[in-house]
């Protein structure tokens, strides 16, 4: 029995270190290779020893696919390819290929330089790893080998995020990675055609959420920033360098443009600048507005947003600063926060302790910082919500769904919904748990054009989607199948044609003349079975007991041709036996309907 097996090594009922193994029709594919934010020990990377204890991974995996550049989807890649050992192809989209090494390098720096970890991958390893990458375009079908092919679809979420369809023969799996069904200020919405895969592996971060319109959020954000700036306050927006930051930049930039504002906006330098460069390049991956207007002006060439210098923080007057990191736990954002927190005119957006209502913070060196600034929390998340997930499932029409990248409890809810409302079986394996899906792959059979045309000519009803029966001979010859007409089959096999005759005896008690009787029976049958070619039965006198046969009930399947031939033979007997020969000429379907 052919089957598809899926084993999540990470992201099974969990968020982080996405890594899913799929074996489909004898091919093994690894989807994503991420790290986990929450751990600093071995658990931060997927357990690759599950694949093989010893020996290189290349022998066990046909390819690796990376959906987008977030570290929880690609963070373990250098470790996996260089330290564990994998030399096969790694597929990702062009923007991912460009931005991924920047993030990996940043990650390495923090881990090694800041935290002082030993036995971590090196810069060289990142470079070597990236050499194994094969970049793909959207909707480009890439042949990994003779049988395995993959195809990328647009996923929104971040620049270059893609969903991948993995296909072997007629069996296919779609992996969504992270995706977003509502467009935002810089990216479009995820889209997939009706590819009807056997299995859809989808993220489920927001399995139990239906989000409100993003317009309110945007307007709210803009209004708050605008008000603060008009009051003369400073705005601190801690962000992660990539993804949302660009969205917010575009949002503020266009707003500034529209409203003719002159207040400076700064963006903390560093990796953002490099990333912004790529955003400018990959215009085709952005949303409609940016794509349409980039000829006049590339929206990522900001007019109002300038690079931030540490000294600017002390400048008087209003300003807006985007600073990394987003959680306000270290780095520039924290420094700026310290400077500005005392003034109630200012506004900042995140910080967990402050958000929970704490107004006095203990800093290093036992200083107590009193927070007088306004603090707001705004969520600009780019994952599909429950409705979005359902919408995608509806678009792709899979046979079954598998949920990853979410919390178990929330997944449970969504799973129940999917099974109920879409009537599609749904799975949610934990890490290391294997899901096996039996499939029934279709086997292609070649048919000769002559035969097809002949059969087409017989039935004229335009019922495209109904199965139709046709006569032919199936020839199986060294693992390929052909359907040919019987004559040709006979010719090919060098066999002579056999003729089978069906007879049927009916015992009639009648005193009329034989000929007259025969005609009556004939006309009766003609009326009953207008589609059959019926011959005038000749009467025959048969001895022996009556053998009645059921009409057409068991016509032998091997019969090739039944020639109508009158029966002969006369005996004189008081009882009259009629032998009738009827020939099915239309289709099997008709005969069996009798």
């Amino acid at each position, binding site marked *: 029995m052919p089957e598809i097996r899926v084993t999540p090594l990470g992201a099974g009922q969990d968020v982080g270190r996405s890594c899913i193994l799929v074996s489909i029709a004898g091919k093994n594919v690894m989807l994503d290779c991420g790290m986990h934010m929450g751990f600093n020990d071995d658990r931060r990377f997927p357990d690759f020893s599950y694949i093989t204890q010893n020996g290189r991974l290349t022998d066990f995996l046909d390819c690796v696919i990376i959906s987008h550049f977030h570290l929880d989807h690609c963070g373990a890649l250098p470790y996996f390819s260089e330290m564990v050992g994998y030399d096969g192809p790694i597929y990702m989209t062009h923007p991912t290929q460009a931005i991924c090494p920047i993030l990996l390098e940043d990650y390495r720096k923090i881990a090694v330089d800041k935290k002082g970890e030993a036995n971590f991958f090196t810069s060289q390893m990142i470079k070597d790893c990236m050499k194994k990458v094969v970049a793909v375009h959207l909707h480009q079908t890439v042949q990994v080998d003779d049988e395995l092919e993959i195809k990328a679809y647009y996923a929104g979420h971040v620049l270059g995020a893609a969903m991948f369809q993995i296909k072997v023969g007629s069996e296919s799996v779609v992996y969504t990675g992270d995706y977003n069904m*509502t467009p935002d200020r810089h990216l479009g919405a995820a*889209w997939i055609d009706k590819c009807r895969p056997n299995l859809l592996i989808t993220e489920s971060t927001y399995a139990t*959420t*239906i989000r409100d*319109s993003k317009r309110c959020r945007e307007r709210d954000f803009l209004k708050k920033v605008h008000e603060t700036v008009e009051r003369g306050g400073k705005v601190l927006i801690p962000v992660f360098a990539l993804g949302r930051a660009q969205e917010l930049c575009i949002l503020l930039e266009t707003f500034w443009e529209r*409203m003719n504002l002159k207040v400076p906006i700064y963006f903390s330098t560093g990796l953002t600048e490099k990333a912004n460069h790529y955003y400018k390049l990959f215009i085709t991956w952005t949303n409609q507005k940016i794509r349409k207007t980039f000829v006049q002006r590339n929206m990522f060439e900001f007019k109002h947003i300038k690079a931030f210098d540490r000294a600017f923080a002390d400048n008087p007057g209003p300003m807006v600063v985007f600073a990394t990191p987003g959680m306000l736990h270290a780095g520039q954002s924290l420094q700026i926060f310290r400077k500005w927190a005392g003034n109630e005119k200012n506004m900042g957006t995140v910080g967990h302790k402050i958000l929970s209502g704490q107004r006095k913070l203990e800093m290093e060196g036992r200083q107590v910082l009193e927070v007088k600034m306004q603090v707001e*929390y705004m*969520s600009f998340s780019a994952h599909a919500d429950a409705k979005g997930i359902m919408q995608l499932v*509806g678009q792709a029409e899979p046979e079954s769904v598998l949920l990853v990248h979410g919390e178990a409890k929330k997944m449970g809810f969504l799973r129940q919904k999917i099974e109920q409302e879409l009537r599609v079986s749904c799975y949610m394996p934990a890490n290391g748990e294997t899901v096996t899906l039996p499939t029934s792959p279709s086997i292609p059979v070649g048919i000769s054009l002559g035969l097809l045309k002949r059969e087409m000519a017989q039935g004229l009803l335009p019922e*495209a989607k109904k199965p139709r029966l046709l006569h032919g001979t199936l020839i199986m010859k060294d693992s390929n199948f052909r359907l040919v007409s019987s004559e040709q089959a006979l010719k090919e096999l060098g066999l002579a044609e056999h003729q089978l005759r069906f007879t049927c005896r009916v015992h009639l008690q009648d005193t009329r003349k034989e000929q007259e009787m025969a005609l009556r029976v004939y006309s009766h049958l003609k009326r009953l079975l207008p589609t059959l070619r019926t011959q005038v039965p000749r009467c025959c006198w048969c001895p022996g007991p009556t053998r009645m046969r059921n009409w057409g009930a068991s016509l032998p399947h091997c019969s090739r041709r039944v020639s109508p031939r009158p029966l002969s033979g006369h005996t004189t007997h008081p009882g009259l036996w009629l032998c009738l020969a009827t020939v099915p000429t239309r289709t099997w379907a008709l005969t069996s309907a009798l």
Partner: protein
Amino acid sequence: MAAHLKKRVYEEFTKVVQQQEEIATKKLRLTKPSKSAALHVDLCKAASPADALQYLLQFARKPVEAESVEGVVRILLEHYYKENDPSVRLKIASLLGLLSKTAGFSPDCIIDDAINILQNEKSHQVLAQLLDTLLAIGTKLAENQAIQTRLVEVACKHLTDTSHGVRNKCLQLLGNLGSLEKNVTKDAEGLTARDVQKIIGDYFSDQDPRVRTAAIKAMLQLHERGLKLHQTVYNQACKLLSDDYEQVRSAAVQLIWVVSQLYPESIVPIPSSNEEIRLVDDAFGKICHMVSDGSWVVRVQAAKLLGSMEQVSSHFLEQTLDKKLMSDLRRKRTAHERAKELYSSGEFSSGRKWGDDAPKEEIDTGAVNLIQSGACGAFVHGLEDEMYEVRIAAVEALCMLAQSSPSFAEKCLDFLVDMFNDEIEEVRLQSIHTMRKISNNITLREDQLDTVLAVLEDSSRDIREALHELLCCTNVSTKEGIHLALVELLKNLTKYPTDKDSIWKCLKFLGSRHPTLVLPLVPELLSTHPFFDTAEPDMDDPAYIAVLVLIFNAAKTCPTMPALFSDHTFRHYAYLRDSLSHLVPALRLPGRKLVSSAVSPNITPHEDPSQQFLQQSLERVYSLQHLDPQGAQELLEFTIRDLQRLGELQSELAGIADFSATYLRCQLLLIKALQEKLWNVAAPLYLKQSDLASAAAKQIMEETYKMEFMYSGVENKQVVIIHHMRLQAKALQLIVTARTTRGVDPLFGMCEKFLQEVDFFQRCFIADLPQLQDSFVDKLLDLMPRLMASKPAEVVKILQTMLRQSAFLHLPLPEQIHKASATIIEPAGESDNPLRFTSGLVVALDVDATLEHVQDPQSTVKVQILYPDGQAQMIHPKPADFRNPGLGRHRLITQVYLSHTAWTEPCQVEVRLLLAYNSNARIPKSSWIEGGEVSPQVETSIEGAIPFSKPVKVYIMPKPARR
């Protein structure tokens, strides 16, 4: 009796002209056979199919006259039978279709041949093309029932073809020609009673998506032709909504919409439950579902159609705005919390507070439905769509639905307000317009107003002005709202001072709509103090004027308000009432008597005394004929004066009064110029009076052009009179020139030209000639043969007597006539600071003007710059610079580039607007000019231009370039 004779004369006269036209067509007949013959020769000559194809392609470029079509068709058919190459046959088939469309040719003679060749054709492409030809023939012979049924027969026969192209065409044929009444000819021919709908319906499940689309389109075509579709189509179409191909889905959505409009009240069952709902509701739900389709084409289609489904039950309609069925919290909100409604959204993350997405209330997971059947959230999705086309369609649909349902309008407000922040300006503009259209049904809450007003800072002028228009007709609920609006508008004024007029106008309406809300704000707004006198504000401050406009308009319906005014306010009122009378209404102020108010407006037009006055004065003029020249002149002068004054007083009669006054002025000029005594002077003394006469002729010409092109609503009968007047002016000109010039040669040419003009006039206005009895032209045409033959000097003499004898034609007044006018708002012409620029380089001057009653301003309105050295420059504004804010009104916002060589000191240039005209464009195209050969330049060329705005002076100073 005399009249009768006259009539006969005219009848004969028209006859003659018709004969002339026949002669013109006869001329063409001579060239006819050559074409088909040439084709025949070409086709015979053709050595290879490629050659033949070339000939055919060349042939197809030229039009064929109706008479020779049949001959050409025969030749083509003959060639068709012989031809083996399918591509040539294809071309011939397509040519047959083209030819059969020729006007004046009846294609029933080729139908047999066409059907005949169809039967023997093997190539699918040619078959499809032939069917297309049959379709062309069938549409041409739409009345012939027998042919229609025959063609339908043919189509049915070929429906089973294996090629999708042929099936497509067959379905198209069925859709266009299928008989509409199915029970008429049942007994006559059994076959004709075919149910076309059933046949087409069978192909809804064809294997080829193109054929499926064609089938749906054919069905829609049947509907368009007036056949009532069966309700069974609905279920078939619903199945197609989940088709794999977008064009099928898109067509299916249309079909569902059509059926839902046909059977809105039928009841259909809901699958998987026992309930039943109205068909229109079911269809609405289905179309709503398509708003989240995978293809944006379908989404646009669905969103557009939603707008026109007005019979939908209100609870279905309201679901379209409700995305969150999960949360009940939304409905529980009180009025106090309403202001916050936008931010908080139940238990889901609104992104405002940390952790507010923690569920506040356990919900029954079983009750939650994630893919809501039906209409839920359709608009929420549509408005958030990726493609702006979908968003615009959704906004439009919202607008249409909200106009028909006030409760829905109230509900969709939040969403529309949200759209004010869309990233694409078009969408923002559209949503503002939508809001304005539904503003009768809504009252803005304070928080909504806040969001609306925030957009006032938008840098796009269109957006701001649209918003001002919106505020003009918005209902505000609280006095804080009014205050907020005023504050924001003043902020807008300081940021964009050019919006001054628009903001004042906006405040005018805001004040007059909300008098009671303005009342409590008055002391604050005027900053009056109960005990102290406050400083008198600056009267030139636009912001102060804005506040006063608001207050005075509110005071109009609120008599207690003037009591709150301080002394200087009254003074300012008097000043503003005079200077900005269109913004400040007349007030009943204590201690002053009301300034004479205009005629009470509730008098209907036909009782209107001024209308009567107009009629009477015009009737008086008709007696002109019987007066001596002196009396006639006086009468005309008086009447013109009366009319002008009337036009000034009554704005609604201004157009008609001006129009008639202009006409009378022309007449007056003509009479003056023809004064007898002047003409009796000996030749050498002419100089002075001929000056007068030629000036008069010139002025009449100008005035007639103004009459013809500056008024909207001028009908043909007026145009005749105007042209007639112009003809007289030309005659006058001819006479004057004849008198003053020596030598015959130049005169000869002029005479010729004049006679041509007369001929032209006659050709153009042949139908209107009867109403020109006794007129100049009438007499002229009678004498035409004589004039043609005689010498110039004689012609002039005849003309002179005729001009003097000719009767005064009175001008029938059109129903609605408006004079085109323009006001230049910017440049204002007040600035004392010259616009400095380096000579030789250009400076951009912003021009902003409003145009009233200008038809097709894009092609007619020009900007003229007059430099002090007499140099004039005409600028053609881009079509995109014109906006159309209302019926008959246009707005021109453009930039004009100025340049000049260096001047020693600043000087003023004049900017004005011109109305370009071209009198040839009005004349119907002569039938004998072969179509397609008229060069398009003729239509766009400008014959002259009439200035129609007051010139504005701009102070400029080109500096010499520094070396």
